[in-house]
């Protein structure tokens, strides 16, 4: 559960970072979306604290790497684009939640103490629920067109 907490916290911090980056790039719609995602992940982290009865957050726990160089539920900086649309932001969130669901399902299948397997199975179920929510959310936002990244005033002044 310390790992689960660290994962949710890192995810929250990364989404908050993404929101800051989008605000600087004046992409306010996506910035607000990332801010909302940061709030949701932060809430998940607090739920784990409450569930475990921890009075203080466990410190010094690094989230495990899974299927890449980042944490299980942590988005990659390289996926950002200053012109990205809400669809792209939610696609990042969907990937993260699906990866988290796969991770906990994997842990639940390992030869570990029963309590750990049970906790992992519970977390896997919750992450699958998150996947469902994000898919519903994606269905409500417009699909970007093929020219979504066309900038009429591109950064390279030598065009």
């Amino acid at each position, binding site marked *: 559960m310390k790992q689960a907490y660290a994962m949710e916290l890192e995810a929250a911090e990364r989404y908050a*970072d*993404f929101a*800051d*980056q*989008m*605000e*600087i*790039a004046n*992409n306010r719609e996506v910035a607000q979306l990332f801010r909302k995602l940061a709030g949701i992940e932060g809430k998940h982290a607090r739920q784990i604290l409450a569930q475990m009865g921890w009075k203080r957050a466990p*410190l010094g726990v*690094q*989230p495990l*790497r899974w299927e*890449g*160089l*980042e*944490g299980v539920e942590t988005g*990659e*900086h*390289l*996926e*950002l*684009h*200053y012109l*990205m649309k809400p669809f792209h932001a939610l696609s990042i969130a969907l990937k993260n939640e699906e990866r988290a669901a796969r991770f906990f399902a994997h842990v639940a299948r390992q030869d570990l103490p029963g309590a750990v397997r049970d906790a992992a199975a519970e977390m896997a179920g919750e992450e699958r629920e998150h996947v469902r929510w994000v898919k519903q959310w994606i269905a409500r936002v417009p699909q970007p067109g093929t020219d979504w990244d066309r900038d009429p005033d591109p*950064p*390279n*002044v*030598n*065009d």
Partner: protein
Amino acid sequence: MTAMPAVAITPQTFKSDVKPVWCPGCGDYTVLSAITKALAMLELAPENVAIVSGIGCSSRIPAYTTCYGFHGVHGRALPAATGLKVARPELTVIVAGGDGDGYSIGGNHFLHACRRNVDLTYIVMDNRVYGMTKGQPSPTTEPDWDSKLAPEGTGLREFHPLVIALASGANFIARTFSGDPNGTAKLIVQAIRNPGFSFIEVLSPCVTFRPEQRGWKQLVRPSPVEPTDDPARAARRLMTDDGFNLGVLYVGNRKPYQPAKAPSAKPADLEREFAL
């Protein structure tokens, strides 16, 4: 004497209120995050750390931290940092910059900083382009990189910073990738702890002027060999290095250069010494 921190040190302790103005997706964001994580892991107090930089996108880093910072002129971060560390050896001094700042105009200082082996940690965010000035080739740009500013490429063999660092005497040499912030943080901790001149090359994509560098995450790999303290062995490894092996290449054991502290003198005494 280093002051002990009174409150828990976290990465947030080292982040200033100034929001970075880098492009979304820039590799430098994760390097900033890695530096703050590393400083938290080392439990240093911000007032005992100085970050010195030159000019370029990555050189904006000092303002984004709560440490002491010096944003100097183009290519001159290393001599400024050297003077600082020699005068204030109790400070942890980190030098940050890009490939243009560090290897072109700053190239000479790079050689001699490695040679002098003062206890510094030099982090170069290498994106193989001059990003701040909108996309000119840098010393590490591939010779065949075709762009509007260098049609058909420069045709010039690229600079190999790890080779130069090794030949010049750096005491710790490593390469990492900005797509691995936690791995980068651990490497920075190792580099700071290693006495002498520590050099870390960070492959840090420029998503605006070199968007193809997003593909670096498919190319990087952990180095297939362990670090060595034998410069000759490290040199042989670099002969087959394609620029995407990550990890520590070389950990030397040269004693860092730190002159003995001069006895205190009054200004009048110093004036007498300079009298003709």
